[in-house]
């Protein structure tokens, strides 16, 4: 049945998931970072007893609440879309992928939702310290939720800790810790949550800058900025470091994605890093401005190291022991055929054949030389292995460029706060205010690199998106896509409108 899948169904299903994920990621990073900043601010309040800090905490808490609600709303759809739109995927890897989702619910969501009620409504009902603990638990709960879903996502990029069971025709988990602590999972988690921290810090700085531009709430703004600048500077440096680790992990486990982000068609030793250029899907980058040897160094800590290009992966490179895509597709088809033959033998009670074919799936040679390419068996054209090169190339550069910009921005803000010169340069306050959309842009660009860059795979090397999709009409998905687009856009307008009004009202007296 997979052979007959309508490509427009795959495209609409991908579009719907991308739409939901992109909207979800507008709201989640602010929740991740602001929750910790609320905890810092309330800690200062409890330590100093200064009611001004309570006032500060409560103001940001209102914005947190508005943002949190819509993050929850978009999140539930993502969880269920794995089933509604990617049902073949849900079975093929549900044995591994479902576990982090369930753990997320049991451990993180309940912690977050229980203590968020205490955090919002418990100011006059429980002691100061218990309230503070609740605020910290909201922050931990929110970030713990991010851990499990990112572990699940990382596993799709680098499937570890599993074994294929031909009887159930799915992959099954054999080592939970390999799934949880895979290098991809660790780097993805750290890089993603720190991007949320940075976004929240820029948000707090930008909003505080607006108050200063309006000559309102001077003390409030300076204090908020101080917390945000310290938090932002530390986490943005960490963001750059984890980004570097992530990039090298991708080079190792997803070489096609890596080559696409660099628009590197021909593999080369001593590869330079392209600062600017016009990338192409099939040709080398034109009008290239590059720093010689930097890409090799960033990837392997060696300026002369060989970096694999798209053509190496498509055509193979015998000198470097790399198999061509066509060969992988052939082997993948053979692995799929063995599975089909096994199922047929089982159905026909042909025990001898059944036993012989069953043994293949436990044979390390078959696993390494054929089953490893199982997903390639669904593909026909090697070119379909190449993701959208210009999109990943530019998204990567937007993300990286902005990442470095944030480090500088936080350093400048911190310096201005420490020297008490915040009000002196209005253009800098404008810059801070206008920087608010930038981490949102960087975050979306980062997810484009991660998700567009891994196409055509739902599960790297094992399941392409075309084989993962639910068997429904493309028209049905098209309807729900537009429905979600309308609902999310309406709610986004409402959210921004409420936020702007709340900010204009400013913090209330406590």
């Amino acid at each position, binding site marked *: 049945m997979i052979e007959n899948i309508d490509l427009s169904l795959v495209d609409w299903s991908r579009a719907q998931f991308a739409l939901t994920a992109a909207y979800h990621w507008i709201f989640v990073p602010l929740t991740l970072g602001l929750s910790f900043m609320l905890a810092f601010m309330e800690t200062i309040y409890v330590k100093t007893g200064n009611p001004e800090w309570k006032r500060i905490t409560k103001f940001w808490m209102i914005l947190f609440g508005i943002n949190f609600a819509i993050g929850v709303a978009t999140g*539930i759809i993502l969880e269920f879309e794995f089933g509604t739109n990617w049902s073949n995927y849900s079975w093929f890897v549900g044995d591994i992928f479902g576990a982090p989702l369930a753990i997320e619910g049991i451990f993180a969501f309940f912690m977050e939702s229980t203590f968020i009620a205490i955090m919002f409504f418990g100011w006059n009902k429980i002691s100061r310290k218990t309230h503070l603990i609740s605020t910290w638990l909201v922050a931990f709960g929110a970030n713990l939720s991010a851990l499990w879903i990112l572990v699940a996502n990382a596993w799709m990029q680098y499937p570890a800790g599993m074994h294929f069971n031909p009887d159930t025709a799915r992959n099954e988990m054999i080592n939970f810790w390999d799934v949880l602590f895979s290098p991809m999972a660790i780097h993805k988690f750290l890089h993603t949550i720190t991007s949320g921290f940075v976004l929240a810090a820029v948000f707090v700085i930008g909003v505080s800058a607006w108050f200063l531009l309006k000559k309102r709430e001077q003390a409030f703004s300076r204090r908020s900025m101080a917390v945000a600048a310290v938090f932002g500077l530390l986490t943005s440096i960490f963001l750059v470091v984890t980004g570097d680790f992530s990039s090298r992990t991708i080079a190792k486990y997803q070489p096609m994605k890596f080559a696409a982000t660099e628009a590197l068609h021909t593999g080369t030793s001593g590869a330079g890093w392209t600062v600017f250029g016009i990338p192409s899907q099939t040709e080398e980058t034109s009008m290239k401005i590059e720093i010689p040897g930097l890409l090799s160094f960033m990837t392997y800590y060696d300026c002369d190291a060989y970096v694999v290009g798209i053509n190496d992966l498509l055509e193979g490179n015998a000198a470097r022991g790399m198999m061509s895509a066509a060969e992988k597709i052939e082997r993948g088809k053979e692995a799929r055929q063995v599975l089909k033959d096994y199922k047929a033998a089982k159905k026909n009670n042909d025990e001898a054949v059944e036993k012989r074919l069953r043994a293949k799936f436990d044979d390390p040679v078959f696993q390494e030389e054929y089953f490893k390419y199982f997903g390639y068996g669904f593909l026909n054209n090697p070119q379909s292995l190449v993701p959208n090169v210009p999109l990943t190339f530019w998204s990567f550069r937007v993300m990286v460029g902005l990442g470095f910009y944030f480090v500088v921005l936080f350093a400048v803000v911190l310096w201005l706060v420490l020297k008490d010169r915040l009000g002196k340069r209005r253009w800098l306050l404008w810059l801070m205010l206008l920087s608010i959309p930038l981490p949102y842009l960087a975050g979306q660009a980062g997810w484009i690199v991660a998700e567009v860059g891994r196409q055509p795979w739902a599960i790297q090397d094992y399941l392409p998106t075309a084989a993962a999709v639910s068997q429904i009409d493309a028209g049905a998905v098209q309807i729900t896509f537009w429905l979600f687009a309308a609902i999310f856009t309406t709610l986004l307008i409402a959210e921004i*409108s409420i936020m702007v009004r709340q900010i204009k009202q400013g913090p209330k007296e406590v």
Partner: protein
Amino acid sequence: MFESLSQLALQQYWWVIVSLLGSILVFLMFVQGGQTLIYAVGKTEEERSLIVNSLGRKWEFTFTTLVTFGGAFFASFPLFYSTSFGGAYWVWMLILICFVLQAVSYEFRSRPNNFLGQRIYEYFLLFNGIVGTVLVGTAVGTFFNGAVFSVSDMNLSRWETPYHGLEAALNPHNLLLGISVFLLARVLALLYFLNNIDNEQIATRSKIRLLRNAVAFVVCFVTFLVWLLIKDGFNYDPVTVTKTVNLEPYKYLHNLLAMPVVLVMLLAGIVLVLFGIIRSLIGSRFTRGIWYAGFGTVLAVLSLFLVAGFHHTCYYPSIYNIQDSLTIENSSSSHYTLTAMSYVSLFVPFVIAYIAWAWRAMNKKQITTEELNEESHKY
């Protein structure tokens, strides 16, 4: 510890956990029930505000339980997840949309400049209250009445009608359960108002509504239950390798009689629900009806889930090809995953404990207009 359990024992353990989550979800749907009563019980702006804020402090428990229920079902019985969610597309999408609208409505409702206006967010809550309860009920109904799907030898499932779940939502027996869940949610909500809101008018109106909704609920639920007990059910042969499925007359009645503990749970659940309602109606100062009826709801729904999945019963029958029906044995995760997840489940009592603490801390006193006005965060 869990490693030594058989695959079947783990499957049964996880069916109990998923069933427990499902039953708690039905209880917590009093939030949805309450959302359908905002205008019926709250006649002034102040009363409506009390009702919305009272429910608003609990909506996330229901929401989180729904998400965890989905996650746990995915992790333990992924073939159900892939079959039902990918197949009954329209029903699940409608359920999701109504929960999306609910999630923002509490927070956005009374905020200035909320773009759509307070009324629209209250209508979203009403929509969630009606559609959420009825459709979740009809979805559970398919556990007894089946759905039109097939499963290939590669365990890939396919819905065999173009209606993608709408046909199941219109099945009279499923619909009866959906309406029962809707009415039960309203009954529980009214009991919750009596417990949680300190307002004379709301209490008086809640009692009047309670009687009407309780009578309607009992009629619908008893009809559903009797119908269930006399209908054919989907049995599978637990001994043979092929696990052949056959239709068995009075299957669910047989299941209850074969599992006396489940029968007692069902009866105890019904008695507790009725006790909670009747005691609240006749006792002028009795406000604990929600706890009796709530616990009774959990027991009764849990017993229905166990009747659907235990005693070699297909919990998700295929009426397209009954041999494709899903059972706890043929649709579960591997032994390793169920074992790992079982260790995680040991933390559930801890989670329940801190939820109970939080609930108590927040509900020491009933909600009043004065308290609401003192709060910095208000829905």
